[in-house]
């Protein structure tokens, strides 16, 4: 066997980071009662803008900031349409994906980059040198840790903060939240913007770290997977990490098993994560989905 479990686990963390980032954003959006199916579109706009910002400034972190802004701007279109013009969320989200794929390609037509722009791997004193755990956990780039910090932040925000409580209330029952005097639309717009920024970061992680380069369609469906793991995690932040790492793990393990020469039906294996998500959905039942998910809200209604 040539599979090195330590390297495998380390690779898994990197492969999972983009879907984790996009998913934590979408989780907040869905907890606020909004279903934004445009994750893929926001991600790819983030990917191209991050790439351009990073390479033109020579600083990848500048790229990430640019990507987060770009993702948020694109999501603003969705926010205005669904929250103020009360369009259907499913159709608007799908439109956002179409729009984003087209727009990113237009923006990126003449994007040039240098292969030398890299995001440094961090090294922590002592921690990075721990056998086994060091290489798995403590030798990644900043964004890997940031994604986990965001997950933790979202968890704490939803569980302990007053704003988080309001956000959940809006997602569970917007009529009641409205009656209590909360501004449902404002909460949702902020949630959507946060989701867009996270999706933008996720896209930039692909174009600046994981691949790293820009070509049309580089996100290759990662946004849809992010949507899947939000459900897989039954809208709970910590489970999201498990879900993302499971998805990433299946991808990386599958490649490793192939390289090992094992006879596995690769072409069928790639549907395993989706089937697993359906099974999880059945097991958790419907009760856990935010009750107002996908329903339009207008203050006068």
């Amino acid at each position, binding site marked *: 066997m040539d599979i090195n479990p330590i390297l495998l686990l380390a690779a898994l963390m990197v492969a999972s980071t983009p879907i984790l980032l996009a998913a934590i954003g979408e989780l907040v959006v869905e907890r606020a009662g909004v279903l934004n199916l445009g994750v893929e579109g926001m991600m790819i706009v983030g990917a191209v803008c991050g790439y351009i910002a990073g390479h033109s400034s020579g600083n990848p972190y500048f790229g990430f900031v640019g990507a987060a802004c770009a993702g948020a701007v694109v999501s603003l279109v969705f926010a205005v349409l669904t929250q103020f013009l009360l369009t259907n969320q499913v159709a608007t989200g799908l439109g956002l994906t179409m729009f984003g794929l087209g727009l990113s390609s237009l923006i990126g037509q003449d994007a040039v980059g240098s*292969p030398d722009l890299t995001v440094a791997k961090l090294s922590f004193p002592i921690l990075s040198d721990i056998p086994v755990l060091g290489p798995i956990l403590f030798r990644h780039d900043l964004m890997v840790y940031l994604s986990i910090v965001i997950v933790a932040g979202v968890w704490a925000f939803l569980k302990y903060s007053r704003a988080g409580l309001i956000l959940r209330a809006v997602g569970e029952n917007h009529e009641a939240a409205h009656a209590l005097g909360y501004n449902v639309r404002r909460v949702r717009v902020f949630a959507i913007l946060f989701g867009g920024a996270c999706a933008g970061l996720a896209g930039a992680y692909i174009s600046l770290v994981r691949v790293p*380069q820009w*070509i049309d369609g580089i996100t*290759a469906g*990662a946004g849809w997977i992010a949507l899947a793991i939000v459900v897989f995690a039954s809208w709970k932040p910590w489970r999201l990490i498990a879900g993302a790492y499971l998805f990433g793990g299946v*991808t990386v393990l599958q*490649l490793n098993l*192939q*390289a090992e020469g094992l006879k596995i039906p690769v072409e069928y294996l790639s549907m395993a994560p989706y089937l697993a998500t359906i099974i999880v959905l059945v097991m958790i039942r419907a009760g856990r989905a935010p009750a107002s998910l996908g329903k339009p809200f207008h203050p006068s209604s």
Partner: protein
Amino acid sequence: MKRRTLLATGAGAALAAAMGMPARAQDKTKVGFIYVGPINDGGWTQHHHHSAMEMVEHFGDAVEFVYQESVPEGPDAERAITQMALGGADIIFTTSFGFMDPTVNVATNFPDVKFEHATGYKQADNVSVYSARFYEGRAIQGTLAGRVTTTNKIGYIASVPIPEVIRGINSAYIHAKKVNPDVEFKIIWIFEWLNPAKEADAAKALIEQGCDVVLQHTDSTAPHQAAREAGGVYTFGQAADMAEYGPMPRISSIIDNWAPYYIDRVQAVIDGTWSSVNTWDGISTGMVGIGEISDVVPAEVKAEAEAMRDAIAAGEYHPFTGPINKQDGSPWLAEGETASDGDLASMFFYVEGVEGDIPS
């Protein structure tokens, strides 16, 4: 395009359509290209486009060039090709295997338009087919890979299980094994021609499993980036020279160079000598280019690889020369026998020594 010329050609086209004939510009030869991907994909389509532009440069004002990118295979392709024929194209190049049936269908409706389909096998009176013997380049890659590896593990990122890709694997393996009997191939199929994220993951998995050479039959530069980050890993450019990743990790490349063929075929249309042909060219005509072998390769190895390149170009050496057995040990080619083009075109087996199964 100037608005006036557009209107003028539009009017001409209308007239031609009224007569049931495709429009023809009197002096210029109109050359059309149908691409499966975007022209900046960095791989397959970009190199067809690049070659097409070279052709346009060669002819200058004598040709009018039109193209359509990102045409999905299937019914959309048929419409795109028809549209181009209606628009008055004299010759249309369709540059993906999936355009085969659409090309043949449209060709029957436009007997006066010449069609050139890349990588297919259906020829007609006005449909030529052309393809490149990339396996010749793979023989050189295999030789280099077998020489430079120290771990004796060579990774191979394979795309879609079709004969062309399998020929490449076999050719590379045979030649790596020849110069280094201890080599072992690790093959990952990603079932796509271009997916940088998957290619990067595959390259990383191969490197982590100890491969210090990664060959690829996919189009992006993502594996090079992964190799560069890992350090000490050799790669080869695919479709493009990918020289920006040299001298390390990229130590050579297989370059798709369609320009000489395109110039030749368009010239034939201009001269009125075009006839339907089945072209399968390799290193000898330059259709398969071998990128400069970088200096990190020891001089004697470089010389060996270049000698093989020259021998193949001169027709003195065939990469599939017996004795070669199939994977199951049954004999395929006897001592000194070379593979027929028919055998190569439908090759769907690994040669002896390659591990694993072809997905099907």
